[in-house]
């Protein structure tokens, strides 16, 4: 392959991960950073670094003209958006294409098809993948009627703009109307569309997602599933692979659903199909597709041995997938802990600052994906992720045991972190016995507050 020069349009640990993947493929890298990120480790590792704009993401990491201009001006052949920021923006992908830059991700039309909950659900339904009861509503009255049909409590959220952002849970009709009005006005303000989505609030379900990978030559495979039920306000804290709570039958079905959606899109690049699984009732319903590399991708790498970021780069440059479905084997179990600069004693509020001491322990079998270094000034402008600690074991208990050792061996000073919370969680029966569902942690915190 001709030498490529990849513009990395992201920051933090994922920027480091992408730069290393490029280094190992013999690709050059140019990193676009915000002013405060000039002193970051990715800025050191990239062959070249360019300051896109000021601290606020809108001026830098979300500054589409600056990113594209910088990529072209530095002679890059491709742009890797990482996760978050511009990674799911069809307009950005299209602009890259217009300027002759390979966008490392799916095609713009695929991003569009997956960009809003309505069309994504429609797609899933069209190929017989079950979705949660609910739908889009134009008026509070519609919403009320729909809610009565599917039954309270329900989730209320803007139809456009994915993730957990602005999602609200309501338990009665009064609450619904209020929430609907707010969501609708927010939605029309931010997305120019007041459509509000109503869906059943699943009381106790596991968040299970399937890793998919496709090339430009019609090959598509899945790389098994991950479980990410341990969340706090839709932010994942501990992820693992595979999901041991699934029956083989349910697992087969899940993988099948994911591939059906990938096929329907003729999906190219790396992606994740998210589902809610009611383990007791065996119900599965489609949530959404994340058309990008996922924060928790390393747990899948650990159990399959597939370098997902490398494969994502290669298929973006048109290489056919060397992997076939039958080559994908799952070995053991992997766990990822998200160490964040958040204070568990105060509702996980962010606590940026200067890292005066950063001494992770290189215990065997633990992988640290992190951009931390001693003396680093953890900036207040972006998300709180400091490090991902990935451990692997023959089985789930072995992986958890390694995770305990790895997090216990970390010495960090200068920012308040969630280290203690992670340690506590790893010793919690619900987690040891894998009974956690997506609401568990919030309920637990709620209880603690009441004490």
């Amino acid at each position, binding site marked *: 392959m001709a030498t490529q020069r990849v513009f990395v349009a992201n920051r933090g640990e994922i920027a480091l991960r992408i730069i290393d993947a490029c280094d190992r493929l013999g690709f050059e890298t140019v990193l676009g950073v915000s002013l405060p990120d000039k002193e970051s480790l990715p800025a*050191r590792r990239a062959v*070249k670094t360019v300051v896109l704009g000021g601290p606020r993401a809108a001026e830098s990491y979300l500054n589409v003209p*600056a990113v594209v201009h910088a990529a072209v001006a530095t002679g890059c052949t491709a742009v890797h958006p990482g996760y978050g920021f511009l990674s799911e923006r069809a307009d950005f992908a299209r602009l890259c294409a217009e300027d002759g830059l390979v966008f490392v991700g799916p095609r713009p039309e695929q991003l569009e098809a997956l960009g809003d909950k309505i069309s994504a659900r429609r797609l899933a339904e069209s190929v017989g993948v079950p979705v949660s009861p609910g739908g889009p509503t134009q008026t509070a009255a519609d919403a009320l009627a729909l809610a009565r049909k599917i039954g309270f409590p329900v989730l209320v959220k803007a139809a456009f703009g994915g993730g957990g952002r602005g999602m609200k849970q309501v338990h009665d009709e009064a609450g619904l109307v209020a929430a609907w009005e707010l969501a609708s006005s927010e939605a029309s303000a931010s997305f120019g569309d007041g459509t509000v989505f109503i869906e059943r609030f699943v009381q106790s379900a596991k968040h299970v997602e399937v890793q998919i990978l496709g090339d430009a030559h019609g090959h598509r495979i899945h790389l098994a599933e991950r479980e990410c039920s341990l969340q706090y306000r839709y932010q994942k804290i501990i992820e693992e692979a595979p999901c041991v709570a699934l029956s083989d039958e349910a697992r087969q079905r899940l993988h099948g659903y994911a591939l059906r959606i990938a096929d329907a899109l003729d999906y190219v690049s790396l992606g994740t199909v998210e589902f809610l699984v009611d383990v007791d009732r065996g119900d599965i319903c489609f949530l959404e597709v994340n058309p990008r590399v996922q924060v928790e991708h390393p747990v899948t790498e650990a159990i399959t041995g597939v370098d997902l970021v490398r494969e994502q780069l290669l298929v973006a440059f048109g290489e056919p997938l060397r992997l076939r479905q039958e080559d994908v084997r799952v070995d053991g179990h992997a766990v990822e802990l998200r160490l964040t600069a958040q204070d568990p004693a105060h509702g996980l509020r962010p606590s940026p600052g200067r890292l005066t001491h950063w001494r992770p322990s290189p215990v065997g079998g633990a992988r640290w994906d992190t951009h931390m270094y001693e003396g680093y000034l953890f900036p207040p402008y972006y998300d709180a992720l400091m490090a991902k600690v990935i451990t692997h074991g023959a089985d789930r208990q072995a992986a958890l045991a390694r995770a305990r050792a790895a997090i216990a061996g970390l010495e960090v000073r200068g920012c308040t972190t969630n280290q203690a919370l992670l340690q506590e969680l790893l010793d919690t029966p619900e987690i040891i016995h894998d009974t956690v569902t997506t609401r568990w942690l919030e309920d637990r915190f709620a209880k603690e507050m009441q004490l």
Partner: protein
Amino acid sequence: MDIDLEELATMVELLKEAEFTEFRYEKGDMRLVISRGAVTANHETTPVGVPGKPAVAPASPLQSPKASPVVAEPAVHEGAEVVQAPLLGTFYACPKPGEPPFVRVGDRVEARTVLCIVEVMKLMNSVEAGCSGVIAAIHAEDGQLVEFGQSLFSIIPGDA
């Protein structure tokens, strides 16, 4: 500019008599070059700091593009105001290709004087001096990428 004019006058007097095509005088950090006849090609490459002069690099400390991306900070001009790039883009010193630049070193500028254009995705953004004074240095090169916050001009403030 602390030139000893008397000294210079004497020198010029003397040089009138002397027959030469090139006269160089160096003393400490002072350096004088006077040529007669055609300007030889290599004059462009003579003085310290001609564009692309590589030997400059080792002079700077650990300034990789990492430590401070793309550019090392320019030599400080005491009391100079440094005009920085308000956004990332392509630096244009001239209104149109071929035309003379907006400003040259030594030019007097006012706060509203346009110094250059920074283009990002076909959008032309003109950059103004922001203060009145004299251009002491131009730190960016025509047609090159400048980063957000990169130093473009040094201006010695002061009114005429």
